[in-house]
């Protein structure tokens, strides 16, 4: 199959590669660029572990063609925080005991980030959080501590917003 030059913006950096038109973003991230933080499982958009952000919104990278991501800002788990400077959601997931095997966690955190960013200014109810992450399966935790972590993170963000009103 003929390959064409693809230019992707991932975590603020530009990546150029020759790609076949049917390659998914997940395939490109993991197998072409070697960014393994985005996880692979069902490849049918049923489990959510491959979730990344496209212009800030959660998408399943296993079904999105890499070409469709051109011209958009792609954020993967590697773009969220570092060990020294964790994203507040990453921090809250650790503190709340929301991580067990961890395989769903990158997708879960990015789904939560997209949801919280789309709902600024209030702390969503636990039910709303459950609805928001229902597309990502976690077999380890039973979800309770994941909901705790997202809730705690939302509370902290609101408290910070109150302390530091927008300039």
């Amino acid at each position, binding site marked *: 199959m003929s390959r064409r030059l693809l230019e992707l913006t991932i975590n603020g950096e530009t990546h150029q590669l020759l790609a076949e038109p049917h390659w998914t973003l997940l395939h490109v991230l993991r197998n072409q660029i070697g960014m393994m933080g985005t996880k*692979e499982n069902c490849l049918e958009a049923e489990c959510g572990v491959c979730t990344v952000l496209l212009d800030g919104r959660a998408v399943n990278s296993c079904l999105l063609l890499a070409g469709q991501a051109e011209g958009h800002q792609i954020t993967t788990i590697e773009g969220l925080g570092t060990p020294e400077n964790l994203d507040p959601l990453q921090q809250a*997931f650790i503190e709340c005991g929301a*991580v*067990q095997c961890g395989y769903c966690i990158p997708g879960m955190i990015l789904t939560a980030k997209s949801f919280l960013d789309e709902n600024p200014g209030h702390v969503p109810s636990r039910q709303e959080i459950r609805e928001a992450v229902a597309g990502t399966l976690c*077999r*380890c*935790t*039973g979800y309770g501590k*994941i909901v705790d972590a997202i809730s705690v993170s939302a509370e902290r963000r609101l408290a910070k917003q109150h302390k530091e009103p927008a300039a």
Partner: protein
Amino acid sequence: MNAEAFRATGRVAGKRLPRMDGIGKVIGKHVYAADFTLPGMLYGRVLRSNKPHARIVKIDTSRAKAMPGVRTVITAADIPAVRYGQAVRDAPVFALDRVLFYGHAIAAVAATTLEIAEQALAAIDVELEDLPAVYDPEEALTNAILVHPDWQDFKVLPILVRDGNMTARTRMITGDADAAFANAYRVYEHRFKTALQHPGYTEPRASVADWDANGNVTVWTNTQLPFDTQTTLSEILDLPVSRVRVIVPGIGGGFGGKLRIGVEHYAALLARNTARPVRVLSTSEEELIAATPRQSAVVHLKTAVDRDGKLLGRQGRIIVDCGAFAGSGPAMASVSLQVLAGPYRNGTLALEGIAVYTNKVPAGSFRAPAGPMANFAVESQMDIIAEDLGIDPLELRLRNIVHEGDKGPSGEELKSVSVEECLRKAAAAIGWHDRKPAPGRGKGIACSWWMTTGGSSGVYVKIDPDGTATLVSGAVEIGTAALTGASQVLAEALSLDLDDIKVAGVDTQTSPYDYGAQGSRTAFSVGNACLAAAADLRQQLFELAAKQWNITTDGMELRDKQVIAGNKTIAIAELARLSRLSGGGLIAHGTANSPGPAFDPGRVENHMLPAWNTPSFHAQAADLSVDSETGAVSINRYVVAQDVGFAINPTYIEGQIEGGVSQGIGQALSEEIVYQNGRVMNANLTDYKMPTAMDVPEIECILVQSASAAGPFGAKGVGEPPCIHPPAALANAIAAATGARMHSLPMTAEKIVKELRSARE
């Protein structure tokens, strides 16, 4: 030095500390087996049968082999005819003359890309001729169709009683059950059924294999049992064990589904043929048609009681459907009998467990294997009896439960018995006094017991010159935080902080042996081995300090990261440096093994696990509502009271409970690998319904701590019990809410509404 000398101060062990591998997991740096790659790696895929039972007329791989990019194609004809297995060695790598189930491996391909490997599968020409098949486990016991006509040729454990499709039969007998039944006030007899349940780990089974220049093979894989996998691979590859090296980079859940060899052998065989590293990763479809789901079961249970509801005897039979290979079925037919006996004074027992072959997916041990099937039967029936006798279901249980010092079903002495406390606490928390608060709403309770599996653990603990310690263990961290727990035990004993401990990855070439991440044993057994190593290290530290100060070790203490003798102190770090100068550094080998208690062999026949090591006790209670029109269940509250002995890290114990209950809710209400005429009808994650965040309620955990004699600081096994009770607790709550009694899992809305309608008619 005696490990028991250590006491938990609450400084590290017992604290809610964050797990040690948490940061790597939240930033995407943690490497799982599915992430592992090697330069020049080929991609392997497996061709699987699309028929449930058929004679292989022809396999022609020539077209596939000729495709550009295809490096090898292998079938049964290309490898030694080895059969592997646990109690029964019945499983070949590829189908031999017949395929035995839908999904049975026929051939494997390695190619330069995954796409080419997939195209090559389609180019393999296989001709299959249908054979009559047997799918129902009860029919299989009397059917003339044999899944394995050559069953008598298999190598088996001598304890097994077998006959045709029956691959194991075990019994548990106490007293004269027939006499007890003859004199009973009432006898209850019911039949219950449970379904095949996939473990549902989010990381598929994945392996990369590579052979070195000396003919040794290394396999990077997500197994729960690296040493068992090493042994099985050595048999399949016909190599000494030491020439097979298994490394577990990281594992995205297991729950029992990654205990036994999964795709490692395909990767190793393909890599040997191509002299290239080969990776094999299961697809979702392969997971659902050809992994090792929880066995389905049929339970016949008969119970005799007196006028007050006191148990006089139980008779029963559980049939465990193994599918095409025995797997853990014989062991589970055994273990299910203890669960059927329950944490009860039964009077007499006459229980039988049967493991049977059918032409379905080879099943296995999913978290508390056999637990939920047997518990669903016994705890549902307890409620049926209570209802019939007009006794409150909690009260009926309290009249019959075991107490400290009672004999268990095999005649073993029961210790640290806490089932009453668990039942009372769960009942109080759910508001048992108001069991039917509104029409369509009801509460249910169930209790059980479960073992802490023994098996040996070894650890090396090394103290570095900065005063920190490295734990080298052959135990896999499957996500439970069991190794964080074991490290907390180690840190506590060495007077270190948890941050001072590092855990080395599992590598069968360098790690001490461990029986594996199974059976609620990792924190328990590795923790005990850590205490043994800590005792050794403490003695080494004392002796180094004694030499330094020219005194004896009498009265020395290890506290605040230093050795203290009177007014003298010396830091562990300094002693580690001194040890490097003269003693080759500080290192200790700690081991642990926890044999089961003494039992009465006269009470068991052909039983593979006759007496449970350090049993735990637990109760769960549910409050739910049922929509009378649709049958839909919504769980309002869910309470767990579980005896964990000593809570090494309460956060992750709650995590085990919440996750286990969630899996149990799935088994109870929605999960089933559905077969029709031998074919799986729902081999994808849309139609195989695992609970989402919308389906699981808030789970309230009550940690009961009745210390064990054998566990680190009194701990008991934690991981498996939480998924035992949900089917029964929810069935009992559904009955309380609606009057409908469900006898088969999963209790889908469709089944419930059908039951409600037939009750109305």
